[in-house]
């Protein structure tokens, strides 16, 4: 039968009509995200009201009324407080932050030697960026340089030696110490945590017991106690002149701590692995270390990335506790400088805390974003 040319059959596709206005664009987004139900609407309006209540005052305080330049407290104090601002005005004292900025970053490191921490920082960034990019080549060499060579080089560059003028760790401080402590803690805690987690699941009773003991003892003591003991009690036990560096004590304390926490995070990942993975690896004739390295750990660690990053972020913020042993990390040096009578005003302490909080937030937020990226990048098995 010949194909009849029915005139009522369409030849061309009808051009697509635009979606109804309720399904696209701003209105759709608003409807689904902000005003989907009566409850949502109330919450949205409440949040908007809250923002309208807080934001103008905050912006006014942070930027419009803020003092940006000045050499001492006069710039940030009102006339009746002995300054130059009109009475009744209150704004952030950024002049304080800018006057103390170098201290906030480097502590009391001699200013003529700032190139040394800056060089270390530059090397750190140059080595870290390719390390963080999954596609960058030479991962092995990169890791060696970042985790083994850099700390050694940094130790001599910052502390002196080989003809460089020595700088005592007593003078280190600020963001520099925060970063050193957290980088060292992170670098040490991951491998140690893995070993401890494997040890805790080991069939060898002695190793298992030692690992359990270590983890449980460390997790049972507050970090403050350990730092305090290391700082105050240890010198009493050591003979005269046997003192060892406070920064080193803090480094050891912090990394022991984070190792114990890390071990439990990793153990969570190990426990989530199905038994078949272990048996499959065994049936291939892999040795214990091959099995762990090639089959189990890559999957287990991938599972617990959020937990690992959580520990890192916690560690980063815990470094502030070195304040109690007389070292000044970022927060410590901000607090210390609030006692400078030349800058003492009603707004100085708040400004200092806002600055410290912002810097901490930048670093923690970056870590958290990177972990999300890695999760998505590695999540080849069970995408939703």
């Amino acid at each position, binding site marked *: 039968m010949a194909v009849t040319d029915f005139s009522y059959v369409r030849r061309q596709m009808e051009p697509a009509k635009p979606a109804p206005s309720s399904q696209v664009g701003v209105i759709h987004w608003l409807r689904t995200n902000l005003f989907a139900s009566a409850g949502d609407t109330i919450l949205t309006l409440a949040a908007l009201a809250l923002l309208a209540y807080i934001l103008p005052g905050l912006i006014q305080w942070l930027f419009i009324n803020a003092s940006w330049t000045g050499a001492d407290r006069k710039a940030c104090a009102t006339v009746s407080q002995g300054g130059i601002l009109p009475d009744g005005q209150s704004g952030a004292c950024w002049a304080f932050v800018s006057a103390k900025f170098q201290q906030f970053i480097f502590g009391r490191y001699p*200013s003529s030697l700032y190139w040394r921490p800056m060089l270390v920082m530059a090397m750190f960034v140059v080595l870290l960026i390719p390390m963080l990019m999954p596609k960058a080549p030479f991962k092995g060499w990169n890791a060696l340089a970042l985790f083994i060579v850099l700390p050694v080089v940094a130790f001599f560059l910052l502390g002196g030696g080989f003809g460089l003028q020595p700088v005592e760790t007593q003078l280190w401080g600020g963001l520099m110490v925060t970063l050193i402590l957290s980088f060292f803690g992170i670098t040490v805690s991951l491998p140690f945590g893995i070993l401890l987690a494997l040890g805790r699941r080991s069939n060898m009773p002695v190793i298992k017991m030692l690992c359990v003991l270590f983890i449980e003892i460390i997790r049972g003591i507050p970090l403050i106690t350990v730092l305090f003991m290391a700082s105050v009690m240890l010198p009493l036990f050591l003979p005269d002149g046997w003192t060892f560096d406070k920064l080193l004590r803090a480094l050891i304390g912090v990394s022991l701590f984070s190792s114990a926490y890390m071990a439990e995070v990793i153990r969570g990942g190990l426990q989530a692995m199905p038994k078949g993975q272990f048996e499959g690896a065994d049936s291939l004739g892999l040795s214990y270390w091959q099995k762990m390295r090639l089959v189990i750990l890559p999957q287990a660690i991938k599972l617990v990335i959020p937990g690992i990053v959580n520990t890192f972020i916690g560690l980063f913020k815990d470094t502030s506790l070195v304040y109690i042993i007389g070292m000044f990390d970022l927060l410590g040096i901000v607090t*210390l400088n609030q006692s400078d*009578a030349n800058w003492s005003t009603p707004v100085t302490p708040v400004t200092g805390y806002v600055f410290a909080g912002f810097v901490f937030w930048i670093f923690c937020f970056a870590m958290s974003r990177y972990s999300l990226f890695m999760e998505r990048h590695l999540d080849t098995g069970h995408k939703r």
Partner: protein
Amino acid sequence: MKKTILSAAIGAAVLGAASAASAATLADVKAKGVVTCGVSQGIPGFSNPNDKGDWSGIDVDYCRGIAAAVFGDPSKAKFVALSSKDRFPALQSGEVDVLTRNTTWTISRDTSLGFNFRTVNYYDGQGFMVKKSLNVKSALELSGAAVCVQQGTTTELNLADYFKANNLQYNPVVFEKEADATSAYDAGRCDVYTTDQSGLYAIRLKMKNPDENVVLPEVISKEPLGPAVRQGDDQWFDVVSWVHYAMVSAEEFGITSKNVDEMKTKGGPDIKRMLGAEEGSKIGTDLGLTNDWAYNIVKTVGNYGEVFARNLGPETPIKIERGLNALWTKGGLQYAPPIR
């Protein structure tokens, strides 16, 4: 394993304590090339960092004075920041050579803690701050007032003692943190705020309307602040004490960091003796130092009056009058034994 380490540590502790107590600190300091002082973690005017990150303050200058006396160079002073609870173990363990951290000299610290105090570089005492609008001229007029005070401090106890002794009624408003008490006072929760006087001056800087507050003249407790050293090392104790006396004597003689060179050649016999310009003098060497020790202190750090003016005096934001800390010749308590 643990046990061996522990017993080794205890053994070491015994040895360490013994050697720390009998050690010749001056020789150790000279060998190290630097004198280590315990300072605070930020007390305005006593020890706080300046814009360059260097320590400044009256306690810090005391330490620089010791360095100047021992080495002739005030920069050979190293500062360890200590919290109020860390300070005594740090001195006992030898982590610091001398504690210049506005520490009140009390009998229990002098005896049971095993320290020695002799000089007082700042006479402090608990005082009251009130709103000007109350028109109060003396603490004795404070009957019925609401007093902001920090909980669990000697301040709170001194306050109760004082009001009881004078048969006055008062209404304590107690806070756990100093900062809370200050802001409550600033916000008008109470009529009176009480803490150490030097603290009252520093806190005025953080008030929204400092000129509406006055510090009353009464001082209701004694807080002599001075350096502490370990017991059993008299030579070092002497050095630390005489550094202060040299600074006070210099002020008494009118020797300042500016005119010290002139004074050394043209001054009277006692001035020349103190500055080490007297023939055959053994004052400095008997102290274990060189004969120009006092000259070095005054030249590089200044006399007591200069140090006070630089850190606490009317030219600084803290603006504390000399008061009890004036020389004895001017009605104060600063008095130095003769240097001869």
